[in-house]
């Protein structure tokens, strides 16, 4: 096993991607994500990889599409406004069944917004990434170690289901340092994707990677086939951590940075004798419906805690489906909620719970 080291979240993303056999990075600098690109620019040339700073996010994602279509493990990283610029390319990747990794180290929005941590891109990541019927895999780590672990999961599942995967981080997780054990490095695998447009050398049929289908029936059947894969993913790959949830009257649903603040609030509330726990989604798409639904059978109230004006709360309400009240607490614009604020919400809700 590798030695435990202290690493910034952003640098750990880069090193974990390299360990997962990624040798192609295309990106454009933006705070608070820039350390990912900076780290890659130093490391990639030393390991026979490609680091390319494109002229924009639009160019970056199209380079990702090109490299991915050729069958190599490829990634980009950016922060919120950058993902908006990449939207068209992400839709093309999804429509061409090309896997890749997109990292979003979220900052406050909308517009140029700010540069402090945020979770206001939940809807963008899970629902409205771009035009057309499609999904991408979305992973939401809450520690630097989990970020590292999910990078390889994202690559592997993206490859398995031939679709883009996103790791949704934020400025806090990207900038902070925590102890981390990096995985054993894997060699790049550039040859196992039989569909890749990597040059047939007159040894096999011509592969075409494309998202343009003029015939509606043909396009419809492709989209339907893709949704059958999505159903399989929703069945098999929901991930969530349960924290003190089994006996809880109040269940907080929170992911990433806000789940850490919530955890502190839960520990404080438990000391006051309040039965509160947490479901922490690790995959945001597929959303961990099963575990939330299970706990909706015994919990008396849910509280979605987010660094946004309330986005994931919609999904929690869909799953809870009116069985018990689902409340929301959030801060936005780059403001991080405090454990005290969340504790206040827990106490308030507990006052109404019998």
């Amino acid at each position, binding site marked *: 096993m590798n030695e*435990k080291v*202290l690493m910034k979240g952003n640098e750990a993303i880069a090193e974990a991607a390299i360990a997962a056999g990624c040798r192609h990075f295309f990106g454009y600098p933006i*705070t*608070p994500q820039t350390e990912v690109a900076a780290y890659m620019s130093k490391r990639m040339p030393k390991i026979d990889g490609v680091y390319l700073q494109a002229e924009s996010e639009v160019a970056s994602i199209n380079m990702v599409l090109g490299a991915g279509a050729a069958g190599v493990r490829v990634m980009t990283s950016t922060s919120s406004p950058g993902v908006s610029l990449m939207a068209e390319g992400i839709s093309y990747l999804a429509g061409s069944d090309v896997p890749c990794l997109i990292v979003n180290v979220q900052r406050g929005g909308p517009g140029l917004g700010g*540069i*402090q941590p945020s979770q206001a891109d939940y809807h963008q990541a899970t629902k409205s990434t771009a035009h057309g019927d499609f999904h991408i895999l979305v992973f939401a780590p809450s520690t630097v170690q989990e970020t590292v672990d999910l990078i390889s999961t994202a690559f592997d599942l993206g490859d398995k289901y031939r679709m883009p995967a996103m790791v949704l981080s934020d*400025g*806090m997780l990207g*900038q*902070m*340092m*925590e*102890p981390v054990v990096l995985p054993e490095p894997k060699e790049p695998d550039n040859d196992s994707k039989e569909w890749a447009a990597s040059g047939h050398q007159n040894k096999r049929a011509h592969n075409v990677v494309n998202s343009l289908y003029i015939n509606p029936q043909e396009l419809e059947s492709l989209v339907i086939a893709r949704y059958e894969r999505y159903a399989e993913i929703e069945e098999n790959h929901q991930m969530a951590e349960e924290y003190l949830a089994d006996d809880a009257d109040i269940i907080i649903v929170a992911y990433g940075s806000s789940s*850490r*603040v*919530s*955890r*502190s*609030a839960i*520990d404080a509330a438990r000391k006051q004798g309040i039965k509160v726990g947490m479901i922490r989604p690790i995959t945001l798409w597929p959303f961990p419906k099963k575990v939330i639904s299970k706990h909706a059978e015994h919990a008396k109230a849910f509280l979605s805690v987010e660094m946004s004006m309330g986005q994931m709360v919609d999904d929690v309400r869909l799953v809870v489906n009116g069985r018990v009240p689902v409340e929301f607490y959030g801060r936005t614009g780059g403001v*991080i909620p*405090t*454990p*005290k604020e969340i504790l206040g919400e827990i106490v308030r809700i507990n006052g109404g719970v019998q």
Partner: protein
Amino acid sequence: MTDLNVLFAGFGGQGILFAGKVMAYASMMEGKELSWLPSYGPEMRGGTASCSVCISDNTIGSPLVVNPDVLVAMNLPSLERFEKDVVPGGMIIVDSSIVKKDVSRTDVKVIRIDASKIAEDNGLKGAANMVILGRLFRETGFCSAENLDLGLQKSIPAKKINLLENNRKALSLGIES
């Protein structure tokens, strides 16, 4: 000791983030759970730089220190901004070479250390951060002396290894202050 939440604050360039990093690395060598979170963005340029370090035997929740057990204030704006947030019974360590104003809190332990002057008098200009960290180590015992030294070694990049001895010396001056 189970939990220790420390907020380091001062001007950009005083080595605020580095002091936090040495503490974080030393705590890792000690086998603790820890997190290190810097302020980032424009506020670091000339304004107040700060960093939160959390150490615990258990999983770290919020890595942002809102109510520090220990506040290290290396300039006046930092003291004025964060003094009120220190937990009752906590500690405020001030670089008294730079901060002339008294700490107004009476429910915390106040340590005024002439860190910048001590560093400068010993030919260690710029190492006031390590003098203060040395004192913080003595006051809290957040790790063993061996792990503090290991933490320092791990925090200095290979290219700057020539600075190791000066930082060691500054740490010792703080411990003995």
